[in-house]
């Protein structure tokens, strides 16, 4: 159950719709209730997510640094060996800060999967690729697109990408990249803004790659700690994430392109962009909360204002996702579920076979566990925000505690908005019970 802290002064009970969640947050817990089942589900999904993520960050950096402005990038998902062996800065012996106790190159399970795929047969890579028997990078690109597309998500990177300095950096890189291609250079002269936009897309690809380069070892370490029994409950897991967020908050965010052996900086490290402000917060805002409505599988009536007119009101991220309509081809979260399905730890596979339709609807079951785990990550971000910008949970000053409570309630209010059916779409209420599977 939740840990109670010794406090000298105690606030009266909250009057919020989600009062029990507010109290849990104030006691150091997460939005997700603290039960062993929840802990097992979220850690299992962290592990299942970390391995595709290992591929995602490598391929994202490959696309941002090498593929860059390739007009027909048909093989951008075919990751070269060099990037598989790229060392993660936060794992292995040469790490800047060793978050995962394991090795820095591509994960063993990932390599195994890339060899044989789901079909467990050694076919030419192209067949595996066309059959979608691979890690589905489309999901990663969709996350990147959400971050690119939503403006005002915070941080200094976004205004920088509109600045003259950035455009000059892009100009240099574009000219170098298309040095032997007069057609593309001609197009660039005619439509420079288009190329700048492509550069911005490549920059966001790099940002996302750098963001996930850290999350992968974090999740792998959490899985290892859980396997050893080091987590007593969900708050422990969440606190690991909070500490992780602080530890790597200062990690630089940059974008550089390798053109014929030379490195060109589009966003140099010297600009001082940090992981916390320029990657993590925008990612949570753009991808966890907002993203975009599913295109092509659900009809929305614009006249009936079923889609918010203001992009900031979008509520189509994982925290609001309806996990049941799974299986429709091409919806990015479904692709992620398919990826995670390949790397589920055995204790989760066993667990899922006991409920709902067992093996048949495991994709939905893991999707819901994934949603719980992302609520835990969001809770960690919220608690990290509290620790960074507000007061400790055991602060003796009641004014400070009131500020903390206002912060928690303000965060939860985002899930309670009545417009556009946001409060019905938010899954916060559903995850409070174990029956939501």
């Amino acid at each position: 159950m939740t840990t109670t802290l010794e406090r000298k002064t105690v606030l009266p009970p909250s009057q919020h719709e989600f009062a029990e969640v507010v109290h849990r947050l104030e006691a150091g817990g997460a939005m997700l209730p603290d039960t062993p089942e929840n802990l097992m589900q979220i850690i299992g999904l962290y592990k299942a997510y970390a391995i595709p993520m290992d591929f995602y960050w490598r391929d994202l950096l490959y696309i941002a640094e090498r593929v860059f402005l390739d007009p027909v990038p048909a093989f951008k998902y075919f990751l070269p060996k060099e990037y598989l062996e790229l060392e993660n800065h936060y794992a292995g012996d040469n790490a800047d800060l060793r978050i995962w106790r394991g090795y820095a190159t591509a994960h063993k399970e990932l390599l195994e999967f890339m060899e044989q795929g789901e079909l467990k047969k050694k076919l030419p890579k192209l067949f595996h690729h066309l059959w979608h028997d691979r890690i589905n990078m489309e999901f990663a690109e969709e996350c990147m697109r959400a971050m690119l597309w939503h403006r005002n998500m915070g941080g200094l990177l976004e205004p920088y990408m509109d600045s003259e300095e950035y455009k000059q950096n892009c100009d240099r890189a574009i000219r170098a990249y298309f040095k032997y291609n007069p057609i593309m250079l001609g197009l660039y002269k005619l439509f420079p803004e288009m190329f700048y936009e492509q550069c911005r897309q490549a920059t966001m690809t790099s940002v996302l790659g750098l963001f996930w380069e850290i999350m992968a070892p974090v999740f792998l370490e959490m899985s290892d700690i859980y396997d050893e029994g080091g987590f007593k409950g969900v708050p422990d897991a969440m606190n690991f994430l909070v500490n992780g967020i602080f530890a790597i908050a200062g990690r630089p965010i940059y974008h550089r392109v390798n053109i014929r052996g030379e490195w060109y900086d589009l966003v140099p490290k010297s600009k001082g962009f940090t992981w916390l402000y320029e990657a993590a917060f925008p990612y949570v805002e753009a991808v966890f909360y907002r993203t975009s409505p599913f295109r092509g599988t659900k009809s929305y009536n614009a006249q009936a204002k079923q889609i918010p007119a203001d992009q900031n009101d979008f509520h189509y991220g994982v925290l609001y996702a309806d996990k049941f309509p799974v299986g429709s081809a091409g919806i990015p979260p479904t692709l992620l579920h398919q990826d995670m399905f390949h790397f589920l730890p055995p204790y989760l596979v066993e667990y899922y076979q006991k409920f709902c339709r067992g093996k048949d609807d495991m994709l939905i079951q893991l999707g819901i566990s994934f949603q719980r785990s992302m609520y835990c990550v969001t809770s960690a971000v919220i608690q990290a925000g509290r620790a960074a910008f507000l007061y400790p949970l055991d602060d003796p000053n009641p004014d400070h505690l009131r500020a903390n409570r206002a912060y928690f309630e303000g965060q939860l209010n985002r899930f309670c908005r009545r417009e556009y059916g946001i409060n019905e779409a938010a899954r916060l209420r559903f995850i409070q019970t174990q029956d939501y599977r």
Partner: protein
Amino acid sequence: MLSLLIAIPIVGAVLTMLMPNGITAKRASLTALTIAVAITLFLSRNFILSEGNFQFRESYTWISLIGLDYRLGLDGISLPLVGLNMLISWLIVFAYNGYRSRLFYALILLANAGLTGAFTATNILLFSIFYELELIPGYLLIAIWGSAKREYAAMKFLIFTAVSGILILVGFLALGWLSGDTMPNFDYQSLRQADLPVSLQIILLLILLIGFGIKTPLVPLHTWLPDTYVESSTYTAMFLGGLLAKLGAYGLIRFCMPLFPTAWQNLSPILAFWGGISILYGAITAIAQKDIKRMVAYSSIGHMGYILLAVSADSSLSLVGGVSQMVSHGVVLALLFYLVGIVEAKVGTREIDVLNGLMNPLRGLPTTSALLVLGGMASAGIPGLVGFVAEFLIFQGSFTQFPIPTLMAIVGTGLTAVYFVILLNRTCFGRLDNRTAYYPKVLGIEQIPALVLTALILWFGLQPANLVKWSEATAQTYSRFTLAELMPVPIDSAQIAIKK
């Protein structure tokens, strides 16, 4: 041969009741029905397609005092119906695994035997006996295995069907006594040659029309149907709708039209309109329904109206269409009731406002929904499926004679599509409700009856000759004119003055 077809299910019913438990009972009844199916296949193998009259005839004098002879015969109208009978009974017995299964199988077998007897009887009194024989199994099937209002529904069924039986019996008795001299003549073949005065024909025809009209059913004699079908269990509804209702339509084609040719001819314009009204009424009320089973029940009323239209047009094409419609309707209705039954069993509700999103491949009922779509399309007469074959033949055969009723029927077909789209849109498409969508899976063995019926729908739809060839020759002997000679027999104006 035909007697075997009647006797074997009866023997099977007795054996079933003697079996120790449900599993052995199912084996016994399935064995009996499989033999019956085999015999039916054998009969169809040896059926001469070009021969319009009765084949495989059997004739025994029984109670000559009242003119009741045991005479059986199979022609192009009865063969498809006997085949339908065997198929659906087999599927029902195969699929049912519930409460008091021994009694259930026995009742189905008895009803099956009675139906075969009714479809093959060439002595009209014998027909009445088999017709009445269906009452008790029908009543028990509804009363024992239905849902909340089953006793009410069963009683309603009993009363209406009994009245219909009495009217038919009265009509036949009158016909027999009036046609014979010293002895009543109940023999079908000779009755066709009999020539009663037209006024008499009209009176007898009206009595029989009401009798068979209750059974078919025709609006406004249909009020027993919605409650009966809805309150019955899935399998009972399949049996009642798929088979028992055919007795009424069969009576129209076999007895009402050929035995009273002049009267029928005189009344046919009114009858055609009656058919059209029945079709439109069924379709329009179906659109208003909120319970999917009730919707299917009303659609059943609509579809039987086509048969009245076909028979009143009385061309060989429309008669072939009428027989095909009986088979088509039987197969499609059985499929629809079966699928609605699965939805109800797995989801727990039949309400259109609550059901949603069943096409979901992981948590819904995808195969059932897909087959429901197909069944809906078949019912709406989409080409490539069996419904189109039947309806198109009826339209083609009736249009030149009765253009307005045919137009009403075509509009009815369009309206059928309306309510099926409503049904499918609300039930199959949309989103599953997260709070409640934890349904059990549909097992492979539960899919089999639906798949068999769907295969048949596709088979007949894609190659209609397989359905139509059986009844072509017989339809020729029953129709007044073919398409080639669309010259109606002149109507005597003095006789048209006689109304109801």
